């Protein structure tokens, strides 16, 4: 009876694994097919003779390396910005006493209920007056500081004992030294988490880059992919190659740093 049950559960789980993994596997195999190969019935699972044509076409014909580079630059800069702004603020909200701290923090939390899209129209106009439309800087603006990031850092900073900070003050460290020599090293795990979240978030972001990056030389991969997919409806192989190039970096990053990602996910879910 137990054995039967076990068999049943395992069967279901592996069926689900197959269903969930299938689209990604299919994406990979199709990307190695010859042009037009995928559009037949019954749909082929594996390429008849694997080819890199689609990838070649992406680089030679569509200059995907430009978009890839844009995505990398933006994601890296977003990560650096987010780490520097949010970590300082999160730590200060957790550990430094100053007037109005709690009021400020609560007003930040209230921002969580406002969807980011509400301010997009004025933000565009604002950036227009700064001349930042179609610049990396404009695309990075939403990533400078995030309530979620501040919240997460604050939560983890709270676990740093006050006495350690005071010990450092007694040892003669000023607040900046305390932050750089003590807090940063002790927050490393959460920095990795926050960095990972920001990197993935920026890499996968779609709406804002779509709006602010007007020039196709500055497109990110998702924007380029969305545009290409409208232009190349019939080229499944090409589009799958594009999808592979877009998905693979973040998927690998996630697999390597999975532990940190889960920590952030659960931290974020504790209080929403």
């Amino acid at each position, binding site marked *: 009876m137990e054995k039967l049950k076990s068999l049943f559960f395992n069967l279901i789980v592996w069926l689900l694994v197959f269903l969930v993994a299938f689209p990604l596997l299919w994406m990979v195999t199709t990307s190695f097919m010859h042009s037009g190969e995928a*559009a037949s019935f019954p749909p082929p699972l594996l390429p008849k003779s694997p080819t890199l044509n689609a990838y070649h076409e992406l680089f030679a014909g569509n200059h995907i390396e430009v978009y890839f580079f844009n995505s990398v*630059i933006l994601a*890296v*800069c977003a990560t*650096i*910005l987010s780490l520097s702004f949010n970590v300082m603020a999160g730590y200060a909200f957790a550990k430094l006493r100053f007037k109005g701290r709690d009021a400020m923090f609560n007003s930040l939390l209230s921002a969580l209920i406002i969807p980011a899209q509400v301010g997009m129209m004025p933000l*565009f106009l604002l*950036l*227009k007056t700064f*001349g*930042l*439309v*179609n*610049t*990396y*800087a404009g695309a*990075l603006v939403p990533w400078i500081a995030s309530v979620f990031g501040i919240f997460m850092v604050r939560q983890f900073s709270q676990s740093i004992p006050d006495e350690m900070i005071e010990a450092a003050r007694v040892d003669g460290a000023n607040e900046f030294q305390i932050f*750089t*020599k003590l807090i940063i*090293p002790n927050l490393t795990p959460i920095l990795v988490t926050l960095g990972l979240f920001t990197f993935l978030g920026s890499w996968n972001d779609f709406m804002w880059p779509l*709006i*602010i990056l*007007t*020039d*196709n*030389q*500055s497109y990110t991969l998702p924007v380029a992919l969305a*545009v*290409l997919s*409208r*232009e190349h*409806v*019939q080229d499944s192989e090409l589009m799958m190659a594009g999808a592979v190039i877009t998905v693979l970096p973040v998927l690998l990053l996630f697999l390597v740093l999975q532990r940190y990602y889960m920590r952030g996910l659960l931290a974020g879910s504790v209080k929403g």
Partner: protein
Amino acid sequence: MINRRNTILTMIGAPLFAGCSKVFGNSNAHSGNVINFWGMGREGEVVGQLLPKFLIDNPDIQVKVQQLPWTAAHEKLLTAFAGNTLPDISQIGNSWLPEFVAIGAVDRLDGFLTNSNIKKNDYFEGIWDTNVIDGKLYGIPWYVDTRVLFYRKDTLRAAGFDTVPKDWDGFRNALRKIKANVGKDKYAIILPLNEYEPLFNLALSVDDPILKDNATLGNFDSKGYKETLTYYKSLFDEGLAPLTDASQISNIYDEFARGLFSFYITGPWNIGEFKRRLPEAMQDDWATTPMPIGPCGINYSSAGGSSLVVMKNSNKKPAVWKLIEFLSRPEVQKEFYDLTGDLPAQKSSWAMGKLDTDKYSNAFYEQLQHVKPAPPAPEWERIAQEMRIVTEQMLRGQFDVNGAVLEMNKRADRILEKRRWILKRGAIHE
């Protein structure tokens, strides 16, 4: 140890920060003698190949070409206007011109035209007119475009016709015959639901304009438009056209070859595509022909194509004009046609390439004698989209023809409200 770590961080961080800080420059900055040129689709791809001679003649000018996909071009141009990132010169769909004139994005060209090699009377009249708004010239036609019928000669012949019947009723009769021949899963014509152009093209061959009162009010409830829409609807109701949009047909050429449909209202770029993508055996079985004659007695089609415009905020207008003059030379136009299959805007170029007598492009030559521009309201593109949407809803049973035209009018009038207000103020942009 701590110090070492900091050093490493600084080493990694510094260039990245430098990278971040370098991003404030606008990539379309109007610096030096670089002309920024936006081209769309195939044109954007090949325009670079036309330029070497121009660059040799004008060593002080550089041209930076950027390609926009057609599906996003209109949106991107507006976005660039909104974000102050327009180029110096752009290709622009000539139906969009009123809009970009109204918002003050493009500059007048009358001044440049005197003493120029560009001669108005060498252009198709209906096409040239699309570049003239309130009597002022804003663009130079680059290539022309109109819609004609592409069809399979074999299925038409099998249905008992040697040529395509000339008027709407005859045309529909032919479609019926074809449908009866091809059976249940195939169709006589494809009118993709995500394109408004086929319907719009049909609606040009009636007496009533689509917008009235200086293009400030919808005129969809006119007799002529209703007649068009009824006709259009009948093609679906009778099963002559499938209720589907183009993105659902994974490859229009394969499906044409397989006989999913026999007629397709489309533009000149497809001459090349049909030649290239249809199987060898089919090459003798397809042809082009002008649109059927509508209730007004003439077979109008849309005055489409692209024009070259100079953006108002460009600071290199003389250089830009030089480029336009270069691209408008008949021999360059001919070369452009060879590269793209886009039909030249000047008749002299047609003659040069013997296009006017070519078996495929001849239909376009004929059709170009009868073309009408899109309504001169900047909002036209939006209204057209609304028209398409309501049409699709009608075809799916949400409206009858009367309901649909009223709905279209309602939507159009709402979109045009601002235009009415601005015209009343007399504050429309030059």
